[in-house]
Structures are given as C-alpha cells and as structure tokens.
C-alpha cells in the first residue's frame, strides 16, 4: 500500500463512520433545535434499532454471514428491514416524548434531561435482560463485492451505507425545507410561542421531530449492524457520544451542521487512528471539539439564538 492508498482507505473508513454518526447526530439536533433538550435516550434508541434490525433480518431466515442475497430479494429484505426498524424506533421516540417528556414540558431545569438519561438506562437494561449482554452475530446478506482502487478497497457495503445515508439526509433536508410539517418544525424551533400563535400545533411538531430523529437513529443502528456484522448492548454509548459531539461541532440545532459534524468526526477518528494510534482518537476528537467551540461557540454552521426566552 502506498501512502496515497492508505490515505484513500482511511478516507473511505472515515466517511463510513461519518455517515453513521451524521444520521445519529440529526436526531440530537432536531430535538435540541425545537426543545433545547439534550435527548440522552437517543443513544440507546440507536442500540435498540440495531437489535430490532437483527431480529427482523433473522426472521427472514438470515443467520450470520452464511446467506448471501442478490438482486430483488436483497433489495426487498433491506427495504423491509429499514422500514420495520425505522418505524419501530420512531414509535419508541414518540412513546418517550408523549408519555415521559410531555408531562415535564412545563418543568424548568434539568428534569427532562435527567428523564432521558433514565429512559436510556431502561432501554439498555431491557435489551440486557431479553437479548443478553454478549456480542451477537448480526445477519448480513450483502454480497462481499469489493472494488480495488489502487491499493485501497471499497466494499459494496460502504457504497450502500453512503447511498442510504445520503438518501435519508437528502430526504430530511427536503422535508424540513419544503414540506408544511417541515416548515412548522423550523418555525417551532425559531420561536415556540409565536409558532403556536400562528396556529401551529406545537405538540404535534415536537412529536414528529421525535419520530423522525428516532427513526434515523434506528436506520443508523441497522447500518451499524450491517457495517460491523455485530450487535451488542453497549454500542449506544460510544457511537452516541460521538454523534452528539458531531451535532455540537456542526452547531447543535442545525441540520446541515449535524451532517457535516458527523463526517468530520468520522474522518478525524480514522486519521488519528492512523497517525497517532487508536488509543488517541478520543483525545483528538474532543480536543478539536473544544478548540472549535472556543473559537466559534455556536459550532461550525450554528448560529447563536440571541433572543430565545
């Protein structure tokens, strides 16, 4: 491998990580943008998504990496997998919002945030007690197709992950920019009170944001499983923390910022692993975060909200 091949390979690795972090970061950013709430349950909604995807794929008779699908069956299984995972995770998000957070809407202080931490642990323990704590072999029906670009290897699954991530992010951007509900979300994020006065059903908007964010976390969980062939109860914290960092780096509350932040974090992680050793990755990631926040407190693409009450 030449230095260029190595660089290219680490860029491919970094972009795949970044795609995953971006999808996860969007959930943080959507909810924060609207409610100014850091939703820690998002970490484990992602993990539950990975588990749901695993169970769904197993229901198709897929086991480990033994069964390889191609053509229409592969597309069908993937579509059903993503649909089921995203719908159920979205449902969990709505459940969390409607039952646990809405009663606390009027409460000032950290109570809602602490609640999300609690929910996170509840989800963690439910999976621990039902599915177990050991590493699970995630079923992967993707054919092991790989393309050699010089000495670097680009696998089908990486291309697929990028395509799915770009589609979902593109869809979300379109949704937020051009649909009625999307506009309502943006209006609510800008000023809840004014939005309510304009006749926007704020509760419905918040619930939609939770649904979309959690569905994206579910998609991200399934991508995680397909990428690593692995599902484990403790994956939420590591990936969640980096995704949250990505959201802050990009400017929390800002949708393109979360995408940019995710990709950056992925690239930083892979290059620091290459040049400094993987034990230093976190140090580098968080140092850069601190640096960015010192120089640009609102994050890379964020704007400070001066007159929010």
């Amino acid at each position, binding site marked *: 491998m030449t230095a260029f091949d*190595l660089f290219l390979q680490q860029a491919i690795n970094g972009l795949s990580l970044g795609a995953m972090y971006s999808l996860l970061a969007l959930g943080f950013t959507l909810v924060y943008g609207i409610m100014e709430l850091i939703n820690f349950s998002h970490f484990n909604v992602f993990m539950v998504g990975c588990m749901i995807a695993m169970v769904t794929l197993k229901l198709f008779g897929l086991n480990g990496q033994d069964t390889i699908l191609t053509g229409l069956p592969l597309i069908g299984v993937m579509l059903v997998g993503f649909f089921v995972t995203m719908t159920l995770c979205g449902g969990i998000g709505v459940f969390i919002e409607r039952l646990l957070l809405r009663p606390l809407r009027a409460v000032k202080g950290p109570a809602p945030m602490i609640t999300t931490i609690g929910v996170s642990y509840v989800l963690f323990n439910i999976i621990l007690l039902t599915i177990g704590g050991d590493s699970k072999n995630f079923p992967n029906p993707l054919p092991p197709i790989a393309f050699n670009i010089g000495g670097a290897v680009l696998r089908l699954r990486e291309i697929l992950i990028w395509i799915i991530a770009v589609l979902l992010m593109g869809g979300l951007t379109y949704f937020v920019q051009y649909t009625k509900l999307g506009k309502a979300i943006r209006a609510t994020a800008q000023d809840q009170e004014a939005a309510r006065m304009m006749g926007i059903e704020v509760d419905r908007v918040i619930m939609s944001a939770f649904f979309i964010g959690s569905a994206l976390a579910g998609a991200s969980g399934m991508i995680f499983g397909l990428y690593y062939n*692995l599902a484990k109860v403790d994956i939420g914290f590591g990936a969640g923390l980096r995704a949250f960092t990505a959201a802050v780096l990009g400017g929390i509350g800002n949708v393109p910022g979360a995408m940019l932040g995710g990709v950056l974090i992925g690239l930083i992680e892979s290059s620091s692993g290459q040049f400094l050793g993987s*034990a230093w990755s976190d140090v580098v990631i968080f140092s850069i975060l601190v640096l960015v926040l010192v120089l640009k407190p609102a994050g890379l693409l964020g704007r400070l909200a001066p007159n929010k009450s």
Partner: protein
Amino acid sequence: MLTRRSAFKAAAGIAATATLGVSQSAHAADKVLKIGMDASFTGADSESATRVANGAIIAFEDANKAKTVKGYTFQLVKLDDGTATAGQYDPAQAATNARTMVADKGYVAALGPQMSGAGKAMSPILSAGNLAIITPSSTNPDITDPKFAAQYRPNGKAIYFRTVATDAFQGPYMVNYLVKARGIKKVYILDDSGAYGVGLADAYERQCKAKGVEVLGRDRLDPKAADYATILTKVKSLAPDAVLYGGVGQAGVKLAKQAYEIIPNVIKAGGDGVFAVDFLKGVGFPAVDGWYASNASPHKDDTNKETAEFSKRFTARFGVAPDDYSITCYTGALAIIQAVKTVVAAGKTVNRDTVRDAIEKVNLPHTLIGPITFNENGDLKNPVISVFQIKKDTTHPLDDVDAQYHYAGVAPQV
C-alpha cells in the same frame, strides 16, 4: 482463566453422578491419610468440578487397590468452595476450606482448587499450616511468583504446586509455535487495555524480540469502541505475517470480525482469552476461521494410546468422558501418591511436612501429560501450552468449543 471454559463445559452439561467415594477396600490395620479435594462443586462450575475430582478418585482407587504405599490407605475428602450465593467459587469459602484442612492433622496434602481466585485465598493459609496443595487448573502466575511470596506463601516454602502451566507462558510459547509452524517474521501486536491483555501482549513483544521476529507496531484497542477498521487499515499497510492479540472477547470479537474483512490472509492468534464460546459465537464463521488460541494446560490427546486407555476407564467408571483437567488432577494425585511412597520408603513419619518436602522433589518422568517435576516455586519445570486453531467443522454445532477448536499441538518451549 479457567472460568469461561469451565462455564462452557458446565453449560454443555452431561450429568455426572459420581461422588467422591474412593472405595476403601483396604486393610483395617492400614493408617488412613486424608487428602483434601477442593473444587467448586456448587454453582456454574459444578460439572467440571466433578470431572476434575473424578480424575483424583481414579488415581487413589488404583493406589489403594494396588497397595502402592504399604500400610497406608488414601481417603479423598471433598471440600466445596462454591456457594449458592456466589453461584460459582467463593474465595471466602475457599479460605474456610483451607482452614479446615490446616486444623485437621489427618490431612497430609490436598488437590485443587480449580480457580485462581480460590487459590489466592487459600495459599496464604495453607502456607501457614505448611500443607501442600496441587492445583489441576488454576493458571494465574501471581500465586507462585516469588515476587508475591510474602503475600501467597508467607512461610517461605512452596506449598502451591501445579500440574498446569501458568498464563505467563502463553505469550512466549505461542510466538515460538508461530515461528516454527508458520515461519512468521513480522508481526503487529494489539491488546485490549485490560490487565490480562496487556500482560499477554507484553509477553508476545518480549519473545518476538528474543526470537528475532520484527515487531512492526503495537496498538491498544479501546474495548468499548466499535470501530477497529482504522487501526486494521494501518496494520494492513504494514503487511505483517501475523497479528498477535492479547485480550478477551469484548474487543476480540469486534477485532476478529473486522480483521476478516480487512486483513483476511494475515495469521491471527490470541491466548486463552479467545479460547471461549463467546468468542466463537460472537464472531461466527467465516470470520473466526483460522484463529489460533492457546491454553495453559496440556490437552487430552486421544491419539496417544495411554490417554485413550485412561479415557476409556474414566468413561466406564463415571459415565462421562474426562476433560483436560480430569487428567491434570489425576496426575496431581499421582504426584501425591509418589511423594507419600518416598516418605515411607525413607522410613520417615508420614505427615504434612514430610509430604510437602517430598512433593517438591517428585519426579514422574512419564505421565499422560509428560514429565512432572516442580521448581522451587511449585510450578512445573516443563510447562505445557496447548495450541488450538479454529477450523469449521460442519458435523458439529458451530458454537461447540470442543469441536471447532482443533488441537494443533504443544507449543515449543524455545
């Protein structure tokens, strides 16, 4: 590191019904010598505890029947260091058992324990009472390490003997094996940041330098991180012959999965941390195929005529096949019998002091697990590390450790 393996064995579960009743057909005039048999008969490891103890039963039954030591009969007494509360071995119970044996002068030696954690609790007490114990399976190096003598043998003399090697040999011997069997010249070393993993990786690194194997790099995996693709890409760019991994399954499973994608043709090896059902199941085939693992005990080799003979007798007597530690326990019992025999032959009184001194000098040149002599710390002079390689065997369940880890032989000592 016995825990995982034996937990698996217990889970694999074949009912064993034998008790520790060494038949006492001996003469009434014979003096009875008590031998303690400490193992975790309660809890997760009860199956393997029974199999271990059954090895000793055969040895003492043979000796009593053949009157190997004239005028003496051996009585094997079971002491359970497992408790229902702990669900496995309980160090506190192990300490109590040690005190029980020390208090009763009828005990002249003991066998056990299975677990290093129990051994750490028992060793200082047994040292104070100068009662020798031979462990068939506990492999933590600290207990016999002279560095920790003040802690584990305050009395100074070795009292904790082993018929297994210690974990300290796994690293170097695996390197020896890979150099000899696979001709490796360049390696990359990874560890999982844990005490066991770092220690093992350090041992790999030292031995590689000693053998002239080039160490291309060393990196530490965060066991909680999910992505090792970055580090494996770096490893790939350096093109090593082998990746040596020190650690257990938490990072090992993720490493093995991603290594299969990124460096499929590089030799991969670990210690007994990857000799476990959670590793096999979590990684799954094909990614797990080809991994080497080591174990700090000789492996039951049924191609050997005498071992096959022993297995047959054992199975006929107890209804289940022996495992590796049945044989190491059997061998430990033979060492005790040999020691008592030399004491009697020298015309000395048989008590725990004379028996301990004799065990230290035991020389069994020919046993099922090779020559048995102990060094001044109680460790085997010729420790045996077994090497296994995972090869897919579709005639057995794919998560069956015994079927999928194929015995590759004894790792060379140099």
